[in-house]
């Protein structure tokens, strides 16, 4: 564009922000190119603008920049990335530029990384069951196509292995269709990224995967763009190319820390734990990009992964995430320590979209009742366990002891499974009934009589 003028010199540098004075005709949110005296090019975005000055957030960070000799050019439009089907099988950096040595993808389609909110009226309500082959998910916290279902984990727990297992095994029951994967790494170590790439390679989905890497050694502010760039590609694939896209975002805690860093250097009033008051709105501008749209075939399913600092689920990041996403898969330290894989916590995990995605014609008629009953019984097991730890098992009633036995069987036969074990939904439900049949029939008050008659295994047979 002709109107591009290069301004020379900066008025101030503060954290990831630079201030340029004497500027004219600069729009809020537009893209900025910053050229250092050595000719190195960095990208930034206008975050505040006055009549003659602009504050610019530099994605690559400000280290090495000086006030003199810096050229800034305002591009006149927000950050856009090229999107195309050709981007599958490729690796990109945190700003969506090729990072695998191959040339830039040739396409005419450029899209604003910030996306646009989906009109709630145009959304299609997600109802298609995705079989992940993991009983704890399929049976009790069903993943639905178009859902955003995060994994809340803690340091050292196998969230990456679970996410890779989901990416490997996820299928639609109805068509057996596979997913296109968009993998986004934010502030994680190289070996984590390597693990995912290897795992995609082994299962042969790598050429169907786009990888966006902003690793731990990349500038922190870049991470604010990474998920947006990746989701922009995902939106193109889902709603223009009509593909089913599974987006794995790891680790959202790092993203939020970058946001906190930026907010603090802008001198904003912090809310909880120093995070900005708009953390909720900012996170929802990422998570709400999942979904389905009426009249379009594609879908975006998101699995954000986040590590809870000291396993604290009330920390602002998991807390605000849980308020936006449609449920959560919570990993539990105690199960992990007892070597249960996957250590998916029975009670705090939840899938909000499960209710409409299961049942007759989708999974099986008894699914809802069975899941509700397992939850209720397992809740009671937890209660009895804490009682038993005080009064001793001998003091418990016979029924309570039966419940404890149920708890053991549930954790070892239902929750536990191999990393490469792919259970069909039928198998999951049948194991559920086998586990539930440890309990006397009259304890099953959340299941219809009809289903009990059909599936319950009376104790003589169970022996």
């Amino acid at each position, binding site marked *: 564009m002709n109107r591009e003028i290069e301004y020379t010199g900066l008025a101030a540098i503060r954290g990831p922000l630079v201030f340029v004075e004497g500027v004219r005709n600069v*729009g*809020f949110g537009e893209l900025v190119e910053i050229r250092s005296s050595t000719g190195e090019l960095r990208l930034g975005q206008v975050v505040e603008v006055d009549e003659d000055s602009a504050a610019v957030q530099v994605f690559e960070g400000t280290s090495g920049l000086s006030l003199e000799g810096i050229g800034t050019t305002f591009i006149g439009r927000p950050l856009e990335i090229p999107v195309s089907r050709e981007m599958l099988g490729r690796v990109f950096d945190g700003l969506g530029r090729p990072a695998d040595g191959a040339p830039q993808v040739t396409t005419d389609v450029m899209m604003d990384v910030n996306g646009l909110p989906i009109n709630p*009226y*145009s959304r299609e309500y997600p109802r298609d069951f995705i079989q992940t082959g993991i009983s704890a998910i399929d049976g009790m916290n069903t993943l639905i196509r178009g859902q955003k279902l995060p994994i809340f984990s803690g340091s050292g727990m196998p969230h990456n292995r679970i996410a890779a297992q989901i990416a490997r095994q996820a299928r639609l029951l109805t068509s057996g269709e596979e997913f296109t994967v968009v993998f986004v790494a934010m502030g994680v170590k190289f070996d984590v990224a390597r693990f995912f790439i290897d795992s995609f390679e082994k299962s042969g989905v790598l050429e169907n995967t786009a990888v966006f890497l902003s690793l731990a050694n990349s500038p922190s502010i870049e991470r604010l763009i990474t998920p947006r760039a990746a989701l922009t590609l995902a939106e193109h694939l889902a709603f223009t190319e009509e593909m089913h896209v599974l987006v794995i975002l790891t680790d959202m805690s790092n993203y939020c820390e970058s946001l906190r860093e930026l907010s603090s250097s802008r001198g904003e009033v912090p809310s909880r734990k120093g995070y900005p008051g708009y953390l909720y*709105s900012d996170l929802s501008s990422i998570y709400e990009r999942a979904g389905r749209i009426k009249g379009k075939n594609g879908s975006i399913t998101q699995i954000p992964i986040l590590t809870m600092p000291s396993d604290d689920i009330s920390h602002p990041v998991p807390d605000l995430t849980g*308020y936006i996403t449609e449920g959560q898969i919570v990993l539990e330290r105690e199960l992990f320590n007892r070597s249960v894989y996957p250590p998916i916590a029975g009670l*705090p995990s939840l899938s909000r979209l499960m209710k409409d995605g299961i049942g007759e014609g989708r999974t099986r008629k008894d699914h809802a009742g069975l899941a509700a009953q397992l939850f209720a019984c397992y809740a009671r097991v937890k209660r009895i366990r804490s009682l038993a730890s005080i009064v001793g098992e001998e003091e418990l009633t016979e029924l309570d002891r039966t419940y404890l036995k149920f708890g053991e069987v549930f954790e070892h036969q239902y929750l536990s499974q191999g990393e490469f074990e792919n259970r069909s939904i039928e198998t999951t439900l049948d194991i559920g009934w086998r586990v539930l049949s440890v309990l006397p029939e009259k304890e099953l008050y959340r299941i219809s009589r009809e289903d009990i008659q059909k599936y319950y295994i009376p104790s003589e047979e169970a022996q």
Partner: protein
Amino acid sequence: MKETVRGVVTGVNGPIVRARGLQGIRMLDIAEVGPHRLIGEVIRLDAESAVIQVYEDDTGLKPGDEVSSSCRPLSVHLGPGLISNIYDGIQRPLVDIAALQGSHIRKGVKAPPLDMKRRWHFTPVAAAGDVLAPGAILGEVRESESVLHRILLPPGLSGKLERLAGEGDYTLEDDIFGLQGMPDFRGTLASFWPVRQQRPYAKKVSAGAPLITGQRIIDTFFPIARGGTAAIPGGFGTGKTMTQHALAKWCDADIIVYIGCGERGNEMTDVLNEFPRLTDPRSGRPLMERTVMIANTSNMPVPAREVSIYTGITIAEYYRDMGYGVAVMADSTSRWAEALRELSSRLGDMPAEEGFPPYLATRLAEFYERAGCVETLSCGEGSITTIGAVSPPGGDFSEPVTQHTTRFVRCFWALDKVLADARHYPSISWIDSYTEYIDEVRDWWNERDASWFDTRREAMHILLEDDRLQQIVKLVGPDSLPVQDQLTLFTAEMLKNGFLQQNSFDPKDMYCGTAKQIKILAIIVAFHNEARELLSRGVDLKAITSMQVVGEIIRLKSEVGDHEVQLIDEANQMMKSQFSALNAEAAPAGGGNREGAVAP
């Protein structure tokens, strides 16, 4: 109409825009900003500049861009066509926007809130020559099968009716009426009202009847009166939205205004899919025919989230003024408070608690105070019942929004994480919740069943006793308790599973009529009393708890429909005969001192 003033943008910081040169603009007036003519509201004024909060994404806005304003406050357009519609926070119709722009919302979109071309059948009630007071009924329009829309003389207007259109079909642009002495005035079927201003009424009156919701724990234990206020606080995953949906579906209000404020897009879609299919248990018509929806989901612009609450309640007041009982569901007021916080922080306000602005409590109070039962200007009694969800961070009820809300609501339905984890829904805690409306609704219930109040009290007593005993059980185990106490634990379990827990997907259980509620509660309390009697005669507790009727009682909620409540009487007979049988077995042993048996 006032003339248009113009100015220029001098600075942009997110949704906060500074402008200069807007002579004569007032606080809370609407301005159109930049080349896309984005809608904004003036929130601060000083000598040289005005601060405008823009309701749309303002990326690309530059200093020097034009700002114009016709110096009018943000208003909603009120008239036939609101019902069944879905709006964003500033009353833009999302269905029309989808038709204009496709699946995503772009900035600067303009669409009239009401269909100006549609013809409505108007039947006059007043006549030319009548001298009318503000709010008088001019005529009626059948807006949907469920809603008769009364066309009122807008508040602020009065006088002698010079002309009134005869019965016929009119659009919202057609001239319907005129008043003497106002030659330029053309009255139409619709009118404007500023959202931040309460609509007038004759006087507030006290509530009498409960709002029946079909949810047992609410109607029986923590009822809300028509015109009341309630809060539903709960951490994520405790079922706030599920509870709000259940209330919006089944409560016996005439009109529902559902405000999705900063929540999930898919949840609004769920409502949009479900409401046209579900039928109102009273009128038999689709629920959508009595519902207005405001959807400002979490990824839509934050300032519009702040105003969505006011847009919703103003629409509710409009229908209240026609003499209807309106229920407003706001999900969630915490997101609204966060929008306040975000905007105040961008303005550089000094924060009070947790970054929230000091005026948070005042704003909450103003919002809840717009609820109530009123005597309208001309249509008899109308009411607004307001039910706000609260999303406390970390599920901690001591945070500012929950704490301030409890000061202004009289009904508190606390959601409990432990119940939600066990998938006991609705997960309303019977220990932490409260209602101040019992005295107001007591007469209404007593007319239906004179024993209601006592039965409820006995059941509540069992539940509270259970909570106390559970503390002891945690230390010594249940077997060490006296049998009478063990029975209390058992009955409490029956109440939880057979009464409090309600399955919103079970066709017979999702809505529970008052007659069925009374009968199920009565049978469980009767069971408890009979069992106590038998225990005192020496009957073994295990023999009582393994009675076949116990399982039947727990299943009554899902096996007996509202039109077959006599089946509960049959279960009652069955229970009596099983108790007699137990009693007869016990008689030889305990027969000697039968006369002396005393219930504790």
